[in-house]
C-alpha cells in the first residue's frame, strides 16, 4: 500500500473513528453514509490533504467523486500528482 494512502487512512482513523471499534474502513464504502464523517469532517479532511501533501483543493473539487470514499481520495490525490 502506498505511503500516502496509509497517511490518509491513519488521519481518518485517528480523527473520525476514535473509539468506534465496530467501524471498518472499507475503501469503497461512503465515509459519509457510514457515519464516519459529516460536513465538518469533510472540511477537516480537505485541510489535512492540503497541508500534508502541499496541494491546493479548489471549492469546485469538493465533490463526492474526489472525497466520498478512500478509493476516491486515493484516485484524486494521484490526479494531483501524489504518488
Amino acid at each position, binding site marked *: 500500500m502506498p505511503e500516502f494512502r496509509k497517511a490518509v487512512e491513519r488521519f481518518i482513523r485517528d480523527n473520525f473513528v476514535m473509539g468506534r471499534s465496530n467501524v471498518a474502513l472499507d475503501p469503497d464504502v461512503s465515509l459519509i453514509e457510514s457515519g464516519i464523517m459529516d460536513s465538518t469532517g469533510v472540511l477537516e479532511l480537505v485541510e489535512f490533504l492540503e497541508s500534508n501533501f502541499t496541494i491546493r483543493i479548489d471549492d469546485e473539487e469538493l465533490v463526492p467523486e474526489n472525497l*466520498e470514499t478512500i478509493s476516491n481520495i486515493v484516485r484524486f490525490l494521484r490526479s494531483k500528482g501524489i504518488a
Partner: protein
Amino acid sequence: MPRLVHGFLQRSAEAHPDKTAVMDGSRSATFPELDSLAGRLAGVLKDQGLKRGDRVLMSMENSIESVAAYYGVLKAGGVCVEVPDRSTPSEVSYYLENSGARLCILSDASARRLGPVDAECVIGPGVPAGREGARRVSWEDVLRAPDYAPREGLSEDDLAAIVYTSGSTGRPKGVMLSHRNLCANTQAIVSYLGLTPSDRVMAVLPFHYVYGKTLLNTHVMAGGSVVINNRFAFPNTVVSDMIAREVTGFAGVPSTFAILLNRSVFPKTPVPSLRYVTQAGGAMAPALTKRLIGCLGNAKLFIMYGATEASARLTYLPPHRQDKLGSIGIPIPGVEASIRDDDGFELPPLQVGNICARGENIMQGYWGDAAETARAIRPWGLVTGDLGHRDEEGFIWLTGRIKDMLKVGGERVSPREIEDAIIESGLVHETAVIGRPDEYLSEVPEAFVVPLNHETFSLDDLKVFIDGRLAPHKHPRRWTVVKALPKKPSGKIDKEALKT
C-alpha cells in the same frame, strides 16, 4: 374540526392529488402516496397495540419513509419522539426509558448503529434490530398493510411530539408539543413566508430538529414540495441539486451558511429559482449575513429566532428591514414577545432583560419534569433563557444566552459580541467563544477559531484586528486554532464539548 398536524397532509392529498410532496434522491412521493403510506403505518402501529398518547421513538435520516412515519404516528394517535439518527445506543436507551416508548421506527443505518434496542416492536429496518423476542415489522410489511383512517376523537390538546433538547446541565429534557402548538406555529410561518403550492424547499436540516420539521410541515400545509438532500457534507452537490430541482426555498443554521459561503461554489453560482432563504438556529455574525445577502440576488433573506419550547419559531426579521440587521426582528403572527426582569415586570425599550413569549405555540412543558417546567413557563409566558432588549420600534435585539454570558472581572461580556468581531476580520471560517475560570477575573474569554486559510492565517493579525474592535476586557485571553468545531446533530456549535 380540530386542527391536527396530520390534517395538513390529508388536506393537501385531497387538494393536490397529482402533486409531488417529497423528492428523495431519485424517488418521489405525491401527497396521496405519502398520505396512504402514513395511513398504512398508522394501521400497523394500531395492530401493534399503540394507544392514544403512546410514544413512538423514531431514529431515521430524512427520507420518504421518515416523513410517512411522522404523519403515520400522528394519524394513529401516537406521540413522535424523533431523535438524531446519529444517536448512540446509550442515548437511545435514555430516550426510550425517559419517554416510555415501547415502539420504535428505525432506518437501516440507525438499526445497524444501535444494535439491539430495548423496544417491544421495531418497525422499518430490513436488517436485524431490537432485543431478543422483539416483534419486527419491515417496510414491505407496512406497504402490504391496509390504509387505516386516522384515529377518531383526537383533540388539539393531544401531544404530537416530544423533542429532546440539551441544556447546559443534566440530561436532555423532553419538550412536549401538542397538535395545537405545532399547527399554530406552522400556520404563522406559512403566512409570513408567503408559502404557496408553487414553493419547493431544499431540506438539508434533519427533520428531528424543530427547524427542519417546520420545513416539512409548512410545505405540506401549503401544498408545496420538499426536496430531501442528506449530502450537505458535499455542499456543491446541494447547490447543483437546488438548480436542477428549481427550488424556491432554502434553510440553514449559521454553520450551513459558513460552509456554503466559504467552501462551496454557492457564492459564484446563481440559483435563479430561489425566492427565499431562512436562517435560524442561533445568531449569525452580521459580517456573514451581509455576505449571504450579497450572494442571494433577488431572493429574500428571513432571519428568524425561536426555541424548541416554542415549537420552533418566535420572531422574524422582515426582509425589507435590512436597516435592522443584527436584530431578531418582530414576533411572528400569534406570538406576543416581551422583555422582562426576573420578577416578570415588563421593561421599557432599550433595557436588557429576559426575552419572554406567549402564544399558542408555547410548549405544554417538559416531559416528566414539573420543576423544570415551572422554571421555564411562568405566569407571564415562556422564559426563553435569552437576554435582549426592544428598540423604540419594537424590534428585538439579542444580547446572549443567560447561561452563556461571561462575567469578566465583574463586567458582563457577551461571547457573541466577541465572535461577531472575530468573523468580521474576514480571517476566520468559524469561531466559538467560551468562558474559562480565572483566579483574578473569575472568568476570561477563550476563543476557538477555524482559519479560512490555514496556510496564510496569522493569529497576530487577528489579535491586531480585535484590538481595534473590542475593549481590552473583551479580548480573549486564550486562543486555540482548530481545524473544526464540534457540532450538534442540528449543525449548531457544541460549546459544551469545547469546555471539557
